[in-house]
């Protein structure tokens, strides 16, 4: 049987999840930020010494290499070629400032400085017709001058190129013959809106060489370790071959949260849960995502303020995490976050700093155990937590526990707002969903959040701290393709035919891509969709379209569009003209059949899992609470709150009034009684 290893590189830890012969193994080790591949290779060797073979056929990998290249501005020396008169579009952006009430507004600087932004004498009109033809000579001259200036990577983005690729192709060809890496917007993002398209293309050019270099090094190292196949996690929740990932590196930038959502989706399916809301709470932020039978996507994300318009798992992020700092402001309000104590100095109880954080509040209330953190590799200091929280408690008449409970309440309110944004505010009733909690702190806060939103159930997967690695190992192989169309929807055969042709073209692109990546012949699942909007609007809704013959019939997808618009915005108008903005296609091949292993079945009594009984604060008072060791729980065990379930890298809090059940694959399912 095949084996596959998911490896998720985070800022602090690198997580490993091996699926082999139907069994799962996990491993965690410190990351090596200077070269993340070292931790990957070292982990493989260390874990392998552990008994199990750790000789996977395939590795699926997600890293922060692309993200960090942008955040730390360590990408390749990149140049940009634009239409004459438009080289500064990249810097002007949408001409806004990020914070309205800021006397000295700041924006993140563009990735290409003005002196490396050149203009080409060319121009297309809004129908793609040539107003000024680009000469091959000029293309070659521009490319050479840039190469001579030490440029390592080139981005090209012309106005309306998505309607006529000829001019960008000329530049791309010139760059290739000059041996210069080139990202053309027609390849990266053939969609309208010049700033967003330029930004995405430039990001790709900027991080491409860095990501490629990293992946080459990693593939070599893995090859020496006997691993032949390497797949890379992408922001869309699927994976691609290392070669494809290097070529469109921009698709890997937001792969971290995508891995978590993919893992949560897989866990939810294994537990028979169709509708899930994910809660990934880490040290500085929390990601939430709503899964209504499928992973949702957005193409409106950004990194460091730079727009990134490629399909990305639609996670909503809020600046609340275990490290979020609590303060009392000048008006007497308790604020928690978005400032975070991060990993350095970390929460006060880590012993290095004195900033009161959410983690300190949890520790003070007994919800975190000082000796059970990271499986005992790290001891937390309750006295440091008390000291740090004392100034906050002054506003609570010195009541430390009351202050700590309030810190949690405010942090929870911030997260609840994020959960509300993706559910209630988008027309979904949370009562029909299950909250899937993971990340270091998710299971600690999940039940309180579920109560705030009237979510009836919480699911804590068996490995909440390495769920991203699980998601990567289980991820399908995907490739996304898009073509701008920009046409009114017409109820006639010609239009239907035109759509059909556009999809057919994207499908053959997708087949070519998969064949070149994996050489597989198995037929991919083709998922078609259309970006639609009412004429005049500037925002589109992506509506799935059936791949059957009648899928392109407007009568079918228009009804779905009106329904979606009504749900999202509270009104729809079946009479109003609708436009197609883009045609989208995702081709998908199944990934490794990674499943959770079956757990030994117990008699329902969790007594064997008990490791202690302590006073833990719930609902404003200390309650005698059983502590359980998760690794000792068996299938079918039933727990009753108040209880804490401890494991290597996460603690689950089960408040009074909640009860839990361990299912056959080790998921912990919590439900509110009554």
């Amino acid at each position, binding site marked *: 049987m095949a084996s596959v290893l998911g490896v998720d590189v985070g800022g602090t830890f690198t997580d490993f999840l091996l699926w082999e012969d139907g069994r799962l193994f996990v491993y965690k080790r410190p990351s090596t930020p200077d070269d993340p591949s070292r931790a990957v290779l070292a982990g493989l060797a260390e874990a392998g010494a552990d008994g199990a073979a750790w000789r996977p056929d395939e590795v699926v990998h997600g890293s922060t290499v692309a993200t960090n290249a942008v955040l730390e501005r360590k990408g390749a020396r990149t140049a940009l070629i634009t239409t004459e008169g438009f080289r500064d579009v990249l810097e002007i952006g949408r*001409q806004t*400032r990020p914070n309205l009430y800021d*006397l000295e507004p700041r924006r993140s600087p563009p990735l290409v400085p003005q002196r490396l932004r050149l203009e080409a004498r060319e121009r297309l009109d809004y129908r793609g017709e040539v107003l000024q033809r680009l000469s091959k000579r000029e293309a070659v001259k521009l490319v050479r001058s840039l190469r001579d200036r030490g440029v390592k990577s080139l981005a090209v983005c012309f*106005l309306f190129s998505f309607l006529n690729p000829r001019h960008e192709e000329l530049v791309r060809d010139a760059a290739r013959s000059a041996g210069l890496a080139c990202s053309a917007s027609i390849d990266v993002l053939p969609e*309208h809106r010049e700033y967003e398209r330029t930004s995405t293309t430039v990001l790709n050019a900027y991080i491409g060489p860095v990501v490629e270099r990293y992946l080459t090094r990693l593939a070599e190292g893995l090859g020496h370790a006997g691993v032949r196949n390497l797949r890379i996690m992408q922001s869309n929740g699927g994976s691609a071959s290392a070669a494809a990932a290097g070529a469109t590196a921009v698709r890997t930038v937001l792969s971290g949260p995508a891995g978590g959502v993919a893992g949560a989706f897989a866990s939810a399916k294994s537990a028979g849960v169709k509708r899930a809301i994910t809660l990934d709470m880490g040290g500085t932020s929390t990601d939430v995502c709503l899964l209504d039978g499928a992973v949702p996507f957005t193409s409106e994300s950004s990194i460091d303020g730079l727009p990134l318009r490629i399909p990305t798992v639609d996670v909503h992020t809020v600046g609340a995490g275990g490290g979020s700092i609590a303060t009392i402001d000048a008006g007497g309000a308790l604020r928690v976050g978005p400032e975070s104590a991060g990993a350095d100095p970390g929460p006060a109880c880590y012993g290095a700093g004195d900033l009161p954080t959410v983690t300190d509040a949890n520790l003070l209330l007994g919800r975190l155990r000082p000796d059970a953190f990271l499986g005992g590799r790290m001891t937390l200091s309750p006295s440091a937590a008390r000291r740090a929280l004392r100034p906050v408690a002054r506003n609570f008449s010195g009541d430390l526990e009351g202050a700590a409970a309030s810190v949690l309440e*405010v942090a929870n309110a911030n997260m609840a707002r994020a959960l509300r944004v993706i559910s209630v505010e988008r027309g979904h009733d949370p009562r029909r969903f299950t909250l899937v909690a993971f990340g270091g702190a998710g299971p600690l806060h999940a039940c309180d959040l579920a109560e705030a939103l009237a979510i009836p159930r919480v699911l804590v997967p068996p490995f909440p701290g390495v769920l991203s690695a699980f998601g990567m190992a289980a991820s399908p192989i995907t490739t996304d393709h898009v073509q701008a169309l920009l046409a009114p929807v017409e109820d006639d055969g010609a239009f239907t035919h035109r759509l059909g042709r556009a999809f057919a073209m994207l499908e053959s692109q997708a087949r070519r891509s998969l064949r070149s990546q994996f050489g597989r012949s198995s037929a991919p699942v083709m998922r078609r969709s259309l970006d639609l909007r009412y004429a*005049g609007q500037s925002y589109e809704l992506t509506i799935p379209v059936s791949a059957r013959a009648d899928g392109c019939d407007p009568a079918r997808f228009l009804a779905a569009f009106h329904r979606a618009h009504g749900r*999202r915005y509270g009104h729809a108008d079946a009479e109003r003209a609708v436009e197609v903005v883009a045609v989208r296609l995702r081709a998908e091949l199944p990934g490794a059949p990674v499943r959770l292993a079956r757990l030994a079945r117990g008699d329902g009594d969790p007594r064997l899992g008990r490791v202690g009984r302590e006073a833990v604060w719930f609902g404003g008072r200390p309650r005698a609470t059983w502590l359980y060791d998760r690794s000792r729980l068996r299938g079918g065990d039933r727990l009753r709150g108040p209880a804490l379930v401890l494991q290597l890298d996460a603690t689950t809090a089960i408040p009074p009034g909640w009860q839990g059940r361990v299912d056959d694959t080790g998921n912990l399912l919590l439900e509110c009684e009554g």
Partner: protein
Amino acid sequence: MTNRVDPTALAVFHSLFASVAEEMGVTLGRTAHSPNITERRDYSCAVFDAEARLVAQAAHIPVHLGAMPVSVQAALPLAPFAPGDIVILNDPYLGGTHLPDITLVSPVFERAGRRALVGYLVSRAHHADVGGMTPGSMPLATELHQEGVIIPPLRLLRRGRRNEEALALLLRNVRTPDERRGDLDAQLAAHRTGEERLLDLVTRYGRRQVVTRMRELQDYAERLTRAAINEIPNGVYDFEDSLDDDGDSANPVPIRVRLTVRNRTLHFDFTGSSPQRPTSVNAVAAVTSSAVYYVVRCLLPGDAPTNDGCLRPVSLTLPEASVVNASSPHAVSAGNVETSQRIVDVVLGALAKALPGRIPAASAGTMNNVTIGGFDAARGRPFAYYETLAGGAGAGPSGDGLSAVHTHMTNTMNTPVEALEMAYPFRVRRYSIRNRGRRRTGGDGRFRGGAGVVREYEFLTPAQVTIVGERRKRGPWSLRGGRPGTRGRDSLTDASGRRKKLPSKGQFTVAAGARLGIETPGGGGWGRPSRAKPRQMRKRVKT
């Protein structure tokens, strides 16, 4: 220290009320019809309590900030209200600012029980055309009636039923009625969203708690504001600046302020500012308040609530019949977009004297308004385009000013050139940062002002054009020994290549093939320029 307020509830409800206003904005922006709202996001949404005091305003457009409370006040004489009533208005002398900004005000009642009033919701959106002398409704008018259709407060919806007759009258008076209807529908949708969200809160927490929390949040914002004012030394600070001209005569239009800081209050006295002018540079009182409140809000922490409490420690004296407090029927469209910016400049200038070393130099100080309209023969329909162009931000104590950014009273986005050319019969030939070679448009200084932008339009059909700009005669001022920013300039080149300089404010017709060039001002410099300046000094100092 004893504190009767609940520190936890403050944080929780601050975020809850803010999200009601923000969610209204999302609905409005995503479902509107015209690029002016969907792409440029020229709109604001707010929540008021049952006493018509501001509770939360989404951070959209500052010029709407102080003006929204006046809109609610102007709607109140129509009371008693019933559930489902929505008031519409744009009369600058009755709750509006300038005619293109159409405001809706709706009361929100509890669904069950006594059906008590919970509060009011307000949305305001800039509509690309509301009739009047020129397409885009930003003409150089001499009286309000020339600027477009005037809507006094009236019910657009009565108990949920649309007032079709009033709507018909309104739409007959604008150039692009379908677009107006689409945008008004989006505003109505925003109110439905807001009402749902606010009533969700009432269901979850009960009306009594919601009402109490509204009041507590206002008190909280007041405490934050007084704490911020406490940092300003008591005293009297004067500042004067002027508009280039009023678009009719060439004389500058002075604006003067005397700031008195005393016992954690601020008083702004505009006595000495120019009498109102025969053109549209007049600001109504609501616009002047917005400009002042904007500056006050900038002194608070970034995440502080924006509500009635911020306004309580602040008072204004506005001379009657002046450019900062116009009287009917004076024209006002440029007062909203241009005079408001100069009011910010004088208020900041006065503050710079009170807080030397904390306030940045003047930013572009203009919205560089361009309106183009006419009949689009290729598409067979009339068109009206309005856009504002960014300039340079003033440099400040923490570093260089940003280039090509909207500052102070506006923060509207640009419309993508690709979206423009698909919708309108003109082309954009150049859109770039306004630095030519080594010549920079931001003022030199220890920290340099941001650069302005250049945009060049080429017309494909004859069209009517109105431009309203400022800082075309004198560049934005500097501080502490820096140099002023470069002033803006505009030109028209006809098809034969003859180029003509344009006044800062003007309206004219253009032939197909003509090109309009707009060059916007750079921001002022901050601190004495030193010749041999190490590079990293210009980077932002972490504060």
